[in-house]
């Protein structure tokens, strides 16, 4: 239970708008200023984030070889951040 605790973390996201109006996240800016490029988007669907608490359009992305969810809720982007990261800073 404890190792999978997540926190809702709003992030800056660079988004590419397609001609049909759909959005593709291109990169995510973490709070220390580091920018992570989204390598691939594997899945897009409406979903709730039970771990972080929220719901919206869920993008399953491949970033540096790992799969991560990015959520677009109403007008903001958030990620499910691992809780133990809090102690790292």
């Amino acid at each position, binding site marked *: 239970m404890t190792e999978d605790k997540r926190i809702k973390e709003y992030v800056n996201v660079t988004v590419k708008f397609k001609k049909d109006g759909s959005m593709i996240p291109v990169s995510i800016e973490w709070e220390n200023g580091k920018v992570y490029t989204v390598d691939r988007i594997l899945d897009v669907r409406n979903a709730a984030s039970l771990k*972080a608490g929220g719901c919206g359009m869920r993008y399953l992305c491949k970033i540096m070889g790992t799969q991560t969810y990015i959520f677009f809720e109403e007008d903001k982007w958030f990620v499910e951040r691992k809780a133990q990261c809090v102690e790292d800073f």
Partner: protein
Amino acid sequence: MESIILHADLNSFYASVECLYNPAIRNLPVAVCGSVENRHGIVLAKNQPAKMVGIKTGEAIWQAKLKAANLLVVPPHYDRYLRFGNLARKIYGTYSQRVEPFGMDEAWIDISFPGRSISDGYEIANQIRERIKFELGITVSIGVSFNKIFAKLGSDMKKPDAVTVISRENYKEKVWPLDVGELLYVGRATKRKLRNWNINTIGDLAQADALFIRNKLGKCGTILKDYALGNDYSQVENTEHETIIKSIGNSTTPPKDLCSLEDIRITSFVLSESVARRLREHGLKGKTVQIYMRDCDLEGFERQGQLKDYTNISTEIAHKAISLVEANWFFNKPIRSFGVRVSDLTSSKGPIQISIFKEENKRFKVMDLEYSIDTIRKRYGPYAIQRAALMQTRQFGDLSDNTEALMREVSFNTGEAR
């Protein structure tokens, strides 16, 4: 073609949304409560663990805390509930065009289709249930039946996150043993009467003598008996897309109980001004004024009366409301919440029949005055101009269009206005 109607009910809606947004509290007893300071400190919704210890909606916070000392009290976030209500309706809308919302968290969905059977209805209901859980993170219970009444009963039978089918084959076993009070529109008063005639279950009502029921309860009795028999043929109205306003109302639970006619008078003016302003905003006027009163034991009643002319003048609405109170309230108990509503609406732009016996000019002047007041308030704020009677009574609550006031009026109107 047999109708297949679903009734979807989002389980402990407010509490579920709060728990979704705060994963840490999910397994603790949680109650969403109004603010104690404004005397709205009652349980609006509770989650499953709180339900287990017997906490009930409508209880005061201190009563609920006696049952669970570790009860978490969270304030409501109406904007979130509105959003989730709309998201859920959007999902229902992908299955049928006929979706009739009943409050924020309930809706009927008509999925009748040639060749579709009630077991297909069960499949679809399960799909909807799964989607709500996955996409919104909250749960829904769904009743599947051949009419709206039984569908609603079905959604109450198994909770949370479940589907119940009430078909022509099994309704006698499933519905008839239920308490007659479970039936839609059987309220406290009707239930008491029925009990007196030894009609305790829905089955008793269904098998009661039709003539007897009609004599005792009138036309409504016949309708209720039909409901119990499953003979409800009312349509699922698509109220989602056509936003025809049927009534406009406001209600308030003031910080202090209303004990005198003077209190009622002041509150009526506050409410009527807000109602009249909203009528004007929508370009409407109405003829029927309804009042709603609930006393300190939370027992309520509604009364209505007609005006001579269609109006959107706050003074006329307020005076009618006050006279209705005078005729129907006997000062036996203090009033906890009070509402004023105007229905029987028509456009304010159409031609009007003026009377030679009345000073119509005066009315037009008053109408112009109210429009001017609207403009002043829009430019300089809600308190820039006020009735002298209301000068010392800010405690009756700010009824400007904040979301909370809007919510209350939606529930008061069962979602008709706005």
